[in-house]
């Protein structure tokens, strides 16, 4: 750690971990409901659990991204954050908005719009919160001694993420138009600007961990984020095949979304190559595990599994089935969950001064969480493919099919238990690092 104000990142990461635990808890509620144990139905029906699960995912990742920015930007700009107090105000208001939204979901206060269930009045608070965050980051960056590509790409991702939240706030009478513009937010976030954030964090970590020249890493960062937008923006069309808009999207979405894995492939090759090229042997092996793991798993989860059902001819069968949940879980985990855990693993020892680099617990956390998540992905995938065959080919009733495939949810719960055990170990490691301290400034990285 080079600047005292970087410590604020610790609290964003701590909030992230807390929300991740809650997200997983609600995931289990859904898993059990799917195999017939829905004793909590009166208080937490499936739609509540689902809204909490997906919204907490978004908030814990955003909190992680914000923490990453508060850690990375001062170091890249070579100056303290312009206001630590305001950063804490922003942290608390983010937590308050998140908690109010989640509590509201339990009292039927929401908008039934997948991923964007937060009611509109709260949306305005989200906007204020994000504006405050962006203000702090951008002013720090431009008052700093240098504006690196890594910092610019990361900030650009955060800025565009904020701007793209706005189309989701527009009201529409038509379900089709509502859905059309909802994807401007959701798709252009996860298959667009969030990849800039991921790329920025990845680039920072690779510079620190491998010692490869910044110019080389940042050049490839531009190529990767260029590929992301080139394929991802028009790739939005893969959400428009069958929701009631013109056939032009079948052609455009089909072609460009088929190219989307290229950006993730480039990211994986880039990370692995930089690691091989690097002469610096950074002692923080756990951070390296998570960093390379994020690059590779995002290619499999977001790239390959996304490709598996993105062609219109395939998507005609898989649209609206559990195949989507298969892709969604490994994609979010690989691309965004793991990159947040990477930056936490890298920055925690620097902020706290405790170099718990080489613990068995840390390695176990990595492998258990990843093997568990791969198992969950396979369980969703098998359930999804079986659902496609039974429903879309044999014409069986939805609920009959659900009974037939319920065994896969037992497998899902077992794998989720392994995943959760990994996450618990990770959080124990987080806790064992202790609190951030100014004394860590003197410890070399």
């Amino acid at each position, binding site marked *: 750690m080079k600047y005292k104000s970087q410590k604020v990142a610790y609290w964003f990461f701590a909030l992230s971990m807390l929300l991740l635990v809650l997200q997983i808890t609600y995931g289990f509620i859904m898993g059990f409901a799917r195999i017939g144990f829905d004793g909590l139905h009166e208080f937490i029906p499936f739609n509540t659990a689902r809204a909490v699960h997906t919204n907490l995912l978004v908030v814990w990742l955003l909190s992680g991204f914000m923490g990453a920015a508060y850690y990375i930007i001062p170091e890249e700009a070579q100056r303290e954050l312009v206001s630590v107090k305001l950063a804490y105000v922003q942290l608390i208001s983010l937590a308050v908005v998140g908690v109010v939204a989640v509590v509201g979901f339990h009292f039927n206060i929401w908008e039934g719009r997948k991923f964007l269930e937060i009611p509109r009045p709260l949306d305005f608070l989200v906007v204020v919160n994000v504006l405050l965050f962006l203000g702090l980051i951008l002013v720090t960056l431009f008052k700093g001694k240098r504006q690196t590509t890594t910092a610019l790409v990361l900030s650009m991702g955060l800025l565009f993420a904020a701007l793209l939240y706005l189309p989701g706030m527009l009201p529409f009478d038509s*379900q089709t138009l509502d859905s059309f513009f909802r994807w401007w937010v959701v798709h252009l976030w996860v298959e667009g600007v969030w990849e800039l954030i991921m790329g920025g964090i990845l680039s920072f970590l690779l510079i620190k961990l491998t010692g490869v020249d910044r110019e080389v890493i940042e050049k490839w960062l531009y190529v990767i984020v260029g590929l992301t937008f080139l394929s991802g923006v028009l790739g939005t069309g893969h959400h428009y095949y069958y929701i009631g*808009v013109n056939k032009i*999207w079948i052609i455009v979405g089909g072609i460009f979304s088929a190219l989307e894995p290229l950006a993730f492939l480039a990211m994986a090759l880039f990370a692995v190559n930089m690691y091989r090229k690097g002469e610096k042997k950074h002692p923080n092996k756990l951070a390296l595990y998570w960093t390379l793991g994020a690059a590779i798993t995002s290619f499999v989860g977001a790239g390959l599994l996304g490709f598996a059902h993105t062609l219109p001819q395939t998507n005609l069968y898989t649209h609206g089935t559990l195949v989507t949940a298969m892709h969604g879980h490994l994609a979010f985990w690989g691309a965004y969950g793991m990159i947040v855990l990477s930056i936490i693993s890298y920055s925690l020892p620097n902020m706290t001064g405790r170099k718990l680099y080489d613990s068995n617990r840390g390695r176990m956390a990595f492998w258990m969480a990843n093997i568990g998540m791969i198992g969950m992905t396979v369980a969703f995938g098998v359930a999804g493919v079986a659902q496609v065959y039974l429903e879309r080919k044999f014409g069986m009733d939805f609920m009959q099919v659900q009974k037939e495939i319920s065994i896969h949810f037992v497998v899902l719960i077992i794998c989720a238990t392994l995943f959760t055990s990994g996450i618990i170990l990770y959080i124990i490691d987080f806790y064992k690092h202790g609190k951030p301290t100014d004394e860590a400034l003197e410890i070399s990285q």
Partner: protein
Amino acid sequence: MLSKKQARAFFLGGTLVTFLIFIGLTVFSLSEGNDQTNSENLTESVVRGKNIWESNNCMGCHTILGEGAYYAPELTKVVDRLNLKYDGQGEEVLKSILMSEVPWQPNGRKMVAYGMTDQEAADVVEFFKWIGEIDLNGFDRIVSPLAKDNINN
């Protein structure tokens, strides 16, 4: 070999061009003659139905237009489907489910008991009927041509 400047130009240029094409295609696909969103048949009742659909987060369990949570049935052509199953009484069955004071639980999986009024239930049914009329480029519950023939026979 590619320079950093060229890489930046590729990123900025590519982003700008694809985003402009994206906006252009959006305008094209929603313009008169190309628009197939069934907007012309939107009635006040359909809009009220959509608001009820949204305010109860029905998408948190069901899917509609293939989007949702895969926990409860796809409702895109639910009126037609229930008409077939209940001898043309689909709308009445739907309304009774929506108005029920106790959870509807076919095959054991519970739905929240919404206890809607007659008007509210009628609005939701109108919403489903409007959804069912949208041209979805061939998306349906049973999509395989072979299966369609077998099931129809």
